[in-house]
């Protein structure tokens, strides 16, 4: 078997002492966490380890001894060997580093050997139990050792992905060796609190934190954030109470709210903020996910609000609002005028198409009347537009997303006439298509069998055939006219839907993008680890194999995938083919979000 020793890089140059760490059962590997230096009182070491064990829930043990001989420190050999009797273990590691050499040498002693006291052994050799009676050097079984050097701080802080939910939740160890190593280092954080400059009874070497001053600032900030959080939480609870208590769930209101994207965004934001106040999840892995989710939400909300404030500061400067408002009515007028021109064009012979004149005139007049209605409505509204914009602009202080949602709603309201045209056109067209398809079946002497969901042949009566053909002919010759109207208004509608879709997409992007996780991935790549990679360090003949363990950071795409905040998806809910098919048969299309398609 090969013995793997995970050795922290910071202990490479530590003075001689005791190795403290943990044996990983089942994998034949040891994780070295710290070196406790001489001089020490063994009883104190034992007590300290027990204390640490209780704190960190890692079964810490003394793994062996570490010696980096300096000048005038010969004769350590026998002393180190004696230590093994003080700390009785199954196996005792004696790791030694010659001064000026890069490689380590390691000697593994089993318990019986320690009792047998066989001082003449060479390093890198493990004597089998059978060796005692024979003393035959030929029968030794070569035990191989791999030193895996790791950077203690990075390993401690990093989180292996995919995050396993059950990891150390119920005390059962994960199967993977690396996960165990990572878990051990992360959990033995209390061990690293002991400072080199502490005047305690023990001195040790391990990863040292950057200093206490920074942590004091952090602590103060934490203290300060508590009342702020409380205040926010109170306000949030009042708001949710208003939301739930009012008669919002009456049918017309609820329907309206589900269609207005501002209200949807409001409820979404409330829900997200509520998760911020939720209690911390207990197990470690879940805690990590929870923390990341909260941090993501917080950061994206902050970003959103700051962008919103930026927008607001632009809006309320230099009479920008008044300018917008004064431009809006002429714009609407211009749109209406263009539409009128379009209709006049359609009522002639558009693009040389042969339309049925009578039907063409009827439809054109109908739509013209509609535009007239719309224009009078806009002019009625004109004095209030500036006020609406001014108050609407205030919503930007809640965040850019609110402003965008409001914009989307306003666009929907201002283009209501286009929507109406579209609906009339689509209904008429749909009716025509439906009638034509069934009459075409009659034309061929077939009929649709509803029960068997297929087309059956059928013999019709003479009068049925006659009337059916008559209607078929009429519908067929009227179809181009209807289809043209439908096509033009559908294109208009699609432009509006596209604009709203872009707005919704950007809102969704701001809502769901895991900004915090992304920043973490860029600034501290080791925090989110996908795995590890090994590099072979320079090898000297005669010493054990040295590997350097580095952390393989998570790919950006998987960062987004893992930490994306679930939102109401506003992507087109049917595929492009389905959309085109719907357009062809004249079904109505909507840009609205659908609560049922919630993506997790």
């Amino acid at each position, binding site marked *: 078997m*090969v013995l793997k020793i995970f050795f922290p890089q910071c202990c490479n140059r530590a003075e001689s002492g005791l190795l403290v760490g943990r044996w990983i059962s089942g994998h034949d590997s040891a994780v070295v966490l710290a070196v406790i230096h001489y001089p020490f009182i063994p009883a104190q070491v034992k007590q300290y380890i027990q204390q640490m064990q209780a704190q960190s829930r890692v079964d810490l043990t003394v793994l062996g001894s570490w010696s980096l001989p300096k000048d005038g420190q010969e004769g350590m050999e026998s002393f180190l060997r004696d230590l093994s009797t003080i700390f009785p273990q199954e196996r005792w590691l004696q790791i030694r580093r010659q001064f000026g050499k890069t490689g380590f040498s390691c000697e593994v002693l089993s318990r019986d050997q320690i009792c047998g006291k066989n001082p003449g052994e060479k390093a890198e050799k493990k004597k089998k139990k059978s060796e005692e009676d024979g003393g035959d050097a030929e029968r030794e079984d070569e035990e191989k050792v*791999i030193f*895996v050097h790791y950077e203690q701080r990075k390993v401690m802080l990093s989180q292996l992905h995919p995050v396993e939910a059950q990891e150390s939740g119920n005390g059962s160890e994960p199967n993977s*060796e*690396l996960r165990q190593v990572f878990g051990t280092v992360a959990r033995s954080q209390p061990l690293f609190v002991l400072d080199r400059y502490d005047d305690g009874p023990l001195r040790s070497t391990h990863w040292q934190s950057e200093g206490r001053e920074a942590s004091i600032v952090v602590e103060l900030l934490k203290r300060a954030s508590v009342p702020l959080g409380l205040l926010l939480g109170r306000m949030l609870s009042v708001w949710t109470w208003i939301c739930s208590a009012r008669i919002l769930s009456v049918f017309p209101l609820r329907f309206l709210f589900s269609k207005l994207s501002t209200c949807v965004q409001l409820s979404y934001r409330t829900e997200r903020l509520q998760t911020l106040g939720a209690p911390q999840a207990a197990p470690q892995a879940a805690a990590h996910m929870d923390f990341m989710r909260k941090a993501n939400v917080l950061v994206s909300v902050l970003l959103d609000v700051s962008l919103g404030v930026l927008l607001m500061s632009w809006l309320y400067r230099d009479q920008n609002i008044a300018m917008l408002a004064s431009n809006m009515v002429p714009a609407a007028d211009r749109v209406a005028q263009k539409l009128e021109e379009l209709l006049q064009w359609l009522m002639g012979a558009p693009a040389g198409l042969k339309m049925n004149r009578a039907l063409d005139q009827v439809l054109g007049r109908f739509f013209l009347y509609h535009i007239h209605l719309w224009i009078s409505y806009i002019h009625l509204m004109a004095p209030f537009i500036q006020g609406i914009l001014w108050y609407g602009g205030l919503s930007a202080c809640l965040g850019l997303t609110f402003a965008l949602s409001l914009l989307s709603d306003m666009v929907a309201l201002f283009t209501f006439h286009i929507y109406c045209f579209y609906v009339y056109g689509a209904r008429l067209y749909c009716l025509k298509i439906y009638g034509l398809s069934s009459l075409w079946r009659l034309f061929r002497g077939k009929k649709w069998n509803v029960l068997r969901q297929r087309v059956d042949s059928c013999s019709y009566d003479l009068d049925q055939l006659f009337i059916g053909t008559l209607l078929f002919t009429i519908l067929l010759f009227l179809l181009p006219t209807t289809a043209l109207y439908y096509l033009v208004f559908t294109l208009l509608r699609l432009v509006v839907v596209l604009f709203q879709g872009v707005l919704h997409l950007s809102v969704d992007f701001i809502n769901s993008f895991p900004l915090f996780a992304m920043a973490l991935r860029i600034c501290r790549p080791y925090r989110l680890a996908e795995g*590890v990679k090994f590099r*072979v360090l320079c090898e000297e003949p005669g010493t054990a194999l040295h*590997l350097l363990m580095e952390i393989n950071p998570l790919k950006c795409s998987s960062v987004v995938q893992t930490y994306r905040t679930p939102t109401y998806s506003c992507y087109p809910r049917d595929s492009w083919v389905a959309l085109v098919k719907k357009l062809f048969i004249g079904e109505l299309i909507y840009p609205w979000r659908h609560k049922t398609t919630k993506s997790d």
Partner: protein
Amino acid sequence: MEDEAFSNISGKAISLDCQTHSSFCREFTVSSPKMSIGKVMVYTCSVWLLAYAVFFFTENTAVLSSAILITLTGMMLHIHFVKVDHESLLVIGSLGIQVSSSYASGREVTTFIEMSRIKDIVINEAVYLNQIIYYLCVLLKEPSEPNVVSSVVPLFQSSKPRLNCLAKVYESCQEILSKCQ
């Protein structure tokens, strides 16, 4: 530490570098031939000629500058995402297997597979485009059900060595794996 010459499935020369770090740690590196200057020249020239032809008819200088831009970005993308310079396989007994491929730009993609997830290393046959090739792959298992192959990780995917090269790698991998069982 020897460097041997083999060929890949389309007959191009590749070299296998087998480095023994210790008795249970070996590294195999398959290096593909470097990108030939001639090929680059041919592609570049064809794009530029095309651009010049378009320019001749449209007399728009934007065409020429965009052609230059396209060749440059195309080359960058090619060496960064497509062209694999060498692929290596690091087998560490009782710890795991590390697969890495480095692109011509120096980008390196590394994956480490732990020993507890490895079921075996095998040579398999597959239909690839219009031919049948041998390839080396790592069979993975789920720790919960050790007898089922849950997925397959093919090795040396871009260099695609032939059987004799694969056999060499396979034999020494099996040697290490059997030693560290």
